[in-house]
């Protein structure tokens, strides 16, 4: 009996010990709690401003969003490439032309990257550029109004991913195609004729230094590969541009495998000053191409779309010394120049090291013709001849690198889900922090400029998983803010993001905030359908079009009683907001509208088209809570049968006698 008890006790103890040991051996879950004074570092007290504007791409929502740093608060979503019913972008008559393309009206796109305009390599706070990855375009947002003011389509491109990176003085915005495509007269070709017929095109878009107007200055015809990201040279390397490429295997199917075969793809170095020389010498070729150029006019409050018909092209296979290839390990994604312009960091997303190239060495290699051969007629510089050195064992899957002002680089690692800090000169790894989870791009304020502000690095993560309250299968996207002011990077904030941010830039608030537009001046409103006072409010019929010149001011719409519209008519509500005070927008919506509402800023005129499909009296109202009497800001429009003789009339504040019956 006694031995049985001892035996049982021993057995129990052994089992218990096994469990304890087993538990002890299990790896711990990653420490996900930020430590110490983190909260105070990201805290912006009520009523205080953030230090930086964070201009963030919206990815598949096609928009740009504006956050504050360090708080991570979302201020605004700027509609760019996608329709936005809450403001009427892409629905109002004025904004529909902004989304016009050579394929007609395109209501959606995928905005991946941001470039903030620079002068002498430093942020100047004038414009933000964004790329459309699906139907290739570049957009320009005015940083005074935070409004999309220009969209330029790119011909001969199959997906504008390597864009919208800019040169030191915003001379050019580049646009490199992700998909090589057949162009010109031979577009109906077998997909298997890739090597023969498919070409990659890089567009250099010039930007007018005075008003920002974009124009395709020239296109470079390059071999059929995929362009991923790019950065301009700066300082000593100003005049050059560096593009990462992948699929130099020239695969056209199952790229996952077939475009990952070579040990090295290329970084393409472009001497754009040389390209300018060739153009001046008349070596460019004017080629037919159809593309849309859409420009917003701030005085008519209207976008105008023009279809362009030709583009200037250069063929670097014939015109020597414009481009060179530099081998770079395994499908490089990021291709980033440091603030001095001397070092170019390639981030091979399947590689386990980071090559750093030297601009000086690249120049020497070109001078000494230190080439290992040619690729599609373009010289390939020897890897070692261009290399400053490699960062050894930095992590797995480097994607993108930015810099601080102290000679350090910060590289994101998608596969090993971390940020690694290393020294650009010594190539020594200094610190690493985990990200939650699978970081894509990262962003240091001023990181791509010649004058990084440092202080923070933001991680834009691809996977969120357990970081927030779950919301079903579809979860929020997420960013993480790290303090990099000390030797060690410290996680100080998680913040959810809208859309799927890819790249972002941050700019000090003082460079943008003082220029922010508060109202549009009524006396500068040149909209052809503006009613610049209630006295001008009216309704006019032109055939089956009824134009309502409507005014909105707290707290009434003029006219607010409209009769004489007939079935089959198209009604255009041209709403002018007569307010001249900051933060008093009015909205307009009408029952049964098949498009959206419109938001009208003070001093602006915006048009909503409405085609009634049945007879009756339809209410309309102001949708933006404008005042204590906002709920009273409403009216009626009467729709009569097609043959009716109800006269066209309109009024506000007019009380009539018992009106006679309907259909008179």
């Amino acid at each position, binding site marked *: 009996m006694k031995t049985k008890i001892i035996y049982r006790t021993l057995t129990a103890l052994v089992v218990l010990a096994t469990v304890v040991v087993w538990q002890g051996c299990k790896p711990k879950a990653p420490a996900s709690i930020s430590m110490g004074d983190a909260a105070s570092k990201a805290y912006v007290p009520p009523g205080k401003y953030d230090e930086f504007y964070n201009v963030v791409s919206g990815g598949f929502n096609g928009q740009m969003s504006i956050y504050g740093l360090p708080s991570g608060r979302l201020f605004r979503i700027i509609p760019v490439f996608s329709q936005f019913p809450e403001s009427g972008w892409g629905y109002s008559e004025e904004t529909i032309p902004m989304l016009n393309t050579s394929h007609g009206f395109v209501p959606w796109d995928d905005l991946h990257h941001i470039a903030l305009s620079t002068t002498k390599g430093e942020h100047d706070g004038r414009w933000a550029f964004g790329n459309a990855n699906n139907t290739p375009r570049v957009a320009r947002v005015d940083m005074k109004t935070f409004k999309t003011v220009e969209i330029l389509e790119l011909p001969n491109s199959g997906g504008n991913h390597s864009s919208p990176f800019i040169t030191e003085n915003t001379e050019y915005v580049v646009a490199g195609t992700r998909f090589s495509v057949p162009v010109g007269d031979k577009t109906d070709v077998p997909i298997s004729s890739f090597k023969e017929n498919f070409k990659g095109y890089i567009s250099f878009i010039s930007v007018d230094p005075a008003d920002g107007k974009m124009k395709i200055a020239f296109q470079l015809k390059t071999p059929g590969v995929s362009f991923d990201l790019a950065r301009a040279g700066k300082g000593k390397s100003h005049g050059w541009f560096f593009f990462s490429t992948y699929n130099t295997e020239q695969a056209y199917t199952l790229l996952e495998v077939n475009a990952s075969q070579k040990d090295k793809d290329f970084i393409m170095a472009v001497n754009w000053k040389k390209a300018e020389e060739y153009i001046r010498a008349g070596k460019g070729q004017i080629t037919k191409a159809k593309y849309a150029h859409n420009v917003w006019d701030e005085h008519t409050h209207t976008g105008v779309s023009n279809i362009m018909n030709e583009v200037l092209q250069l063929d670097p296979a014939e015109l020597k010394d414009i481009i060179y290839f530099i081998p770079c390990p395994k499908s490089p994604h990021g291709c980033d120049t440091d603030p001095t312009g001397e070092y170019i960091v390639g981030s091979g997303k399947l590689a386990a090291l980071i090559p750093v190239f030297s601009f000086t060495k690249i120049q020497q290699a070109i001078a000494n013709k230190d080439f290992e051969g040619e690729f599609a007629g373009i010289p390939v510089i020897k890897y070692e001849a261009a290399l400053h050195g490699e960062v050894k064992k930095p992590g797995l899957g480097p994607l993108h690198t930015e810099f601080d002002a102290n000679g350090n680089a910060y590289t994101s690692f998608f596969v090993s889900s971390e940020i690694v800090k290393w020294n650009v000169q010594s190539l020594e790894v200094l610190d690493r922090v985990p990200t939650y989870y699978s970081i894509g791009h990262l962003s240091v304020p001023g990181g791509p400029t010649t004058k990084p502000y440092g202080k923070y690095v933001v991680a834009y993560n691809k996977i969120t998983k357990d970081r927030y309250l779950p919301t079903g299968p579809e979860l929020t996207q997420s960013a993480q803010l790290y303090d990099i002011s000390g030797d060690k990077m410290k996680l100080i904030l998680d913040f959810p993001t809208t859309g799927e941010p890819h790249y972002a830039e941050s700019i000090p608030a003082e460079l943008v905030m003082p220029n922010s537009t508060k109202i549009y001046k009524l006396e500068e409103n040149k909209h052809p359908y503006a009613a610049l006072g209630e006295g001008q409010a009216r309704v006019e019929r032109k055939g089956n079009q009824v134009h309502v010149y409507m005014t909105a*001011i*707290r*707290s009434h719409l003029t006219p607010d009683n409209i009769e004489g519209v007939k079935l089959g008519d198209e009604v255009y509500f041209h709403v002018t907001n007569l307010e*001249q*005070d900051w933060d008093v927008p009015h909205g307009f919506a009408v029952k049964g509208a098949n498009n959206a509402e419109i938001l009208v800023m003070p001093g602006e005129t915006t048009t909503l088209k409405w085609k009634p499909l049945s007879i009756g009296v339809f209410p309309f109202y102001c949708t933006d809570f404008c*005042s*204590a*009497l906002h709920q009273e800001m409403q009216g009626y429009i009467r729709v009569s049968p097609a043959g009716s003789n109800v006269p066209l009339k309109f009024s506000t504040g007019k009380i009539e006698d018992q009106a006679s019956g309907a259909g008179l």
Partner: protein
Amino acid sequence: MKTLRPVSRLLVALAALMMISAYYVPLWQILMWAPQYPEGLAMKIWINTITGDVKVISALNHYIGMKHIDVEMFPEFGYMIYIVGFLIGFGLITAALNRRFLLWMYSVLLIATATAALVDFWLWGYDYGHNLDPTAAINIPGMSYQPPLIGTKQLLNFTAFSGPDVGGWIFIISGILVLGTLGFELYTSKKRV
């Protein structure tokens, strides 16, 4: 005929010349703050016009039935330039003709003008604050909205301040100079007797 000391003539002329500034800078200001307007709203009264956030103030005041503020509302803007011109002229003549009774008259004239201006402003304020549109959206029995003559007053959600602007202060200094000169003349002539 009693004459003036040279320094007095100089001071009176200076006071008159300083009033020329009235044509170039605002004379009076009304400032308003509310929770929604932490940055404040300002209305500047000049010799012949009114500037500042007039449209915004009018847009807000229409809820309580106050009139739309407009330059045409003030006939004063038509003749104020002449009154001030007369005051400047009278001062210069006083200095030129060198008569103490003219200084007396000038002092009385300045006090009378200042008083008349304040009374006129108060009357306008009374009408503006009391003569309300009966169909206004917000109607608070017993409430009127007369702006303060000078100083600060709470009007519903607004704190309103009324007081001299740069030109007004220059006028006040001119007035003090003239009255001071008169006092100085009287004091010193008594001594001489």
